[in-house]
């Protein structure tokens, strides 16, 4: 009887011990599963957010591109046509006075230059050149236009085996480089710009270097131009790094 009681106590103790241990382990397992579910849920939300942001960015870029196309068409078809007509009219004028003729010739010259400039702008805004000739040709064309002004010495270097991307990607890259060049011209007071494209397996590194006055990278985080570049890179799943060696603060 006594032994039976002791055995019962022992069995009870073992049962309690194992139950308590199981309870602790079950709680831990529940927490682990709950956490895993939460992590998966958070990751899902994060994915959706990224997808949504990318879609938004894509629409933004498409709208921007559409605007560029409209301006390009307007410049080429409307303003260009009107200037050509004005030039034609001026050329057909029968003027005997030497001084007036000289002035008219000067005006014709200005209109011709303006037409060339407008054509360049139109070509620069248009995506046709990229779609038809590819990124490299479009870049070379853009650089030639800028070098023509004699204010800048822009060089393009290509390293590695060039691979072709779809038109949309090439257009985005082209616009990024265009934006960089536009920023350099507006703010950097640079005379020399080196653009380097490094092609490696499935990767493209673009480096745009100038000899300008530099800028405060942290202060210009909210700049429109830089943000455009950043957004475009994000759209392509890329990364942008802005570096500046010297910052001249105006006294």
């Amino acid at each position, binding site marked *: 009887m006594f032994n039976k009681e002791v055995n019962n106590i022992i069995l009870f103790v*073992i049962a309690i011990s194992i139950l308590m241990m199981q309870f602790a382990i079950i709680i831990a397992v529940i927490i682990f599963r709950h*956490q895993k579910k939460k992590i998966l849920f958070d990751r899902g939300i994060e994915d959706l957010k990224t997808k949504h942001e990318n879609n938004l960015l894509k629409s933004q870029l498409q709208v921007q591109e559409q605007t560029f196309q409209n301006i390009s068409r307007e410049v080429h078809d409307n303003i260009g046509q009107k200037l050509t007509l004005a030039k034609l009219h001026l050329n057909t004028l029968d003027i005997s006075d030497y001084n007036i003729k000289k002035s008219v010739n000067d005006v014709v010259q200005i209109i011709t230059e303006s037409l060339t400039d407008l054509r360049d702008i139109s070509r620069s805004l248009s995506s046709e050149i990229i779609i038809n000739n590819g990124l490299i040709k479009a870049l070379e064309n853009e650089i030639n236009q800028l070098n023509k002004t004699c204010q800048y010495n822009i060089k393009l270097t290509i390293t590695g085996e060039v691979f072709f991307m779809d038109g949309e990607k090439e257009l985005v890259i082209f616009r990024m480089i265009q934006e960089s060049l536009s920023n350099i011209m507006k703010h950097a007071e640079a005379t020399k710009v080196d653009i380097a494209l490094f092609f490696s397996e499935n990767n493209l590194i673009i480096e745009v270097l100038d000899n300008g006055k530099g800028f405060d990278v942290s202060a210009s985080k909210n700049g429109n131009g830089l943000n455009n570049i950043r957004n475009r890179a994000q759209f392509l799943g890329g990364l942008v790094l802005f570096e500046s060696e010297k910052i001249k603060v105006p006294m």
Partner: protein
Amino acid sequence: MTYKISLLIFNVQCLIILGALLSSFRMYYMCKPNYMKLFILYSIVANIVMVPLFFGTNKIFHIGFANGLNNLSIVFNYTFLVFFILFSMPDRKGITLMIIGYAISTCMIFFLLINKNLKIPIQSAFALNHFGLICYGTVYLIKIFFKIPEKLITEIPSFWVVMGVLICSTLSFPFVSILDFLRQNGIVYNNLLILNLPNIGYSIMYLFFIKAFKCSTRK
């Protein structure tokens, strides 16, 4: 036969504790978060208590001194683990209440220790120690359940430490709490499984500590 198997289990436990100390030394400089570095102190004290117990149990030295040291180590064991758990909690809510609870339970352990013969294991003090640790460990688990950390819990060293403590305490507490009662009633217990439950619990706990150390060195 029962004695031999018990001795074997105890010796395995000693080996695991030594292993925990060695692994803590080996990983000392790589430990992250830094609080795990302090945990080495626990392994050192465990080994200081374990060495006389090992020799005493293997009948090389008299066990009285080893038991005394083991009894006194309850206070360190309890204080260290409680503060480790409190420090690892995801928030500080109710911390004052928990510290008051710790102070009261420590006073009770002290009272039990000074009123009994230190040369034999004071099981009621051990039981109180285990009970307190179960409470704090459960609070820790409840807190991380309601405030899930960003890092996966299996990658958090303190989680493994608390789980080790919980498993050891839940396995030991029921048996340890009735040991004094059985002894006072002259009941001879020779059931191998129940006799070795605390030792198995301690072995599991130190294995979990080794896991915690490994976890803390993972980049």
